[in-house]
């Protein structure tokens, strides 16, 4: 590893640490005069504290919008390479991309292409999910031939039947409601808590410059 590279790693770790600490402090302490109401300049101080977060968040939000260019250049790079060799689908994709932009600009912001093309395709794809999920649901015990697979399928069937508005399925609806109210709620909470916990711990590590994802 060359000296430049080592310096580079130290540089980005330092930037990460500095920006991370300042942004976190600002997010936690900014705009909250009630947190330090004891001294006179509290409101002004709170406003001042909120500035770094406001600026950094804004900066990253705009950067995020700008990076769409990276995404599109990636897409075009991959597909233009194929167009040269005459790949039908890549031509379709690029034509669709170009046509949409041309249409929007030449028609003064007409979005009917979205309604005519994208909404039906996207809706139909989302509808296909149902078929995929039925197939997947029917194969659960093929993938997981154990008690957990069985439990999964049982809950799946009970909850599905619980939504069927037929009189004779009343008891199933009661079970389904109970399931949703107690075990599902508990399980979902635990998973959410767990993910939040992981996010916080990993996030703090990133903030402290201990993550190597951006060290190249």
């Amino acid at each position, binding site marked *: 590893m060359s000296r430049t590279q080592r310096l580079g790693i130290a540089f980005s770790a330092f930037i990460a640490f500095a920006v991370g600490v300042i942004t976190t402090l600002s997010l936690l302490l900014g705009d909250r005069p009630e947190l330090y109401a004891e001294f006179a300049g509290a409101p002004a101080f709170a406003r001042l504290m909120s500035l770094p977060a406001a600026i950094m968040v804004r900066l990253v939000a705009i950067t995020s919008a700008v990076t769409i260019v*990276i995404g*599109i250049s990636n*897409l075009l790079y991959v597909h233009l390479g194929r167009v040269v060799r005459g790949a039908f*689908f890549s031509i379709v994709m690029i034509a669709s991309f170009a046509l949409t932009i041309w249409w929007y600009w030449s028609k003064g912001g007409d979005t009917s292409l979205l309604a005519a093309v994208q909404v039906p395709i996207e809706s139909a794809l989302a509808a296909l999910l149902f078929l995929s*999920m039925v197939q997947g649901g029917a*194969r659960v015990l093929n993938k997981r031939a154990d008690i957990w697979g069985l439990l999964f399928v049982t809950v799946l069937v009970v909850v599905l039947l619980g939504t069927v508005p037929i009189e004779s399925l009343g008891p199933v609806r009661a079970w389904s409601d109970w399931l949703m109210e107690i075990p599902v709620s508990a399980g979902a909470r635990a998973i959410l808590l767990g993910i939040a916990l*992981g996010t916080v711990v990993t996030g703090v590590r990133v903030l402290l410059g201990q993550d190597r994802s951006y060290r*190249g």
Partner: protein
Amino acid sequence: MDDSTLQVYTILFVVITIVLVYTSRFFSARRMPRLSQGRVPGFKRLSGWVGEAIEAGRPLHLSFGSAGIDAESAPVAAAEAELFYHVIKAAGSGDVAPVISTSSAATIPLCQDTIRRAWAGDERRSRAQWFPQGPRSMAFAAGLTATMQVEDPSAHVLAGSFGPELALILDSAERQGQGSFAVSDQLEGGAIAFAMADEVLIGEQLFSAAAWLSHESTARADASVQDVWRGLLIALMAILVIIEVAGQLGIASWSLVLWAALALVVIGVVFVRRR
């Protein structure tokens, strides 16, 4: 709980986490050899797929889903980049570079970076693939399935942020006979992964997945911070419930709280020792 109280607790939690993250490294040096990861299922067949990828000259496909470094899922993306690093490193002697896909444009540099760091082969050019994002990322899923029919990877390692669109990807993988490993920080994706993927991790395990593959003790130390935190949260909830129930029954007092806390600590210690 009003917003100010919430904020005070938030600050407290952040401080505790920082302390834990720093101290865990210190303790890890002494204790980690004895404490190790428990059973993390889900990796059983991954090594087989990696082997197959090397053998058959097929790529591996790894995907962040919509986890992006410019969004709230940034920690997820960071954790998954680490996981992908280890997986790609294992597949490093194949002759087709792995493909990493993402629907977050800002994450493309991270994909390229991960490949560059981990991939040993000469083919280091961009094998990152981006598809547009949506609330349900159908464009991503559909574009991915279409592309993956052509790339024909030996397996999909889908770790990141996936919603219901995961069903389409997994269904296609199943039809193509490609292996699949899936974990998502979204619950819809998690449920679909459980039902349809060959190998699956659930929820929080996605943050400790990399530590499981890594041989570094620091990675384990980092993952153990979550364990400590989880224990603290469980204790906290237990204490709160006890106080509340006692308050309703009219037997609340500070001594009760202290006794309850002491009992929990004892139980916790006994538990840790017996485990």
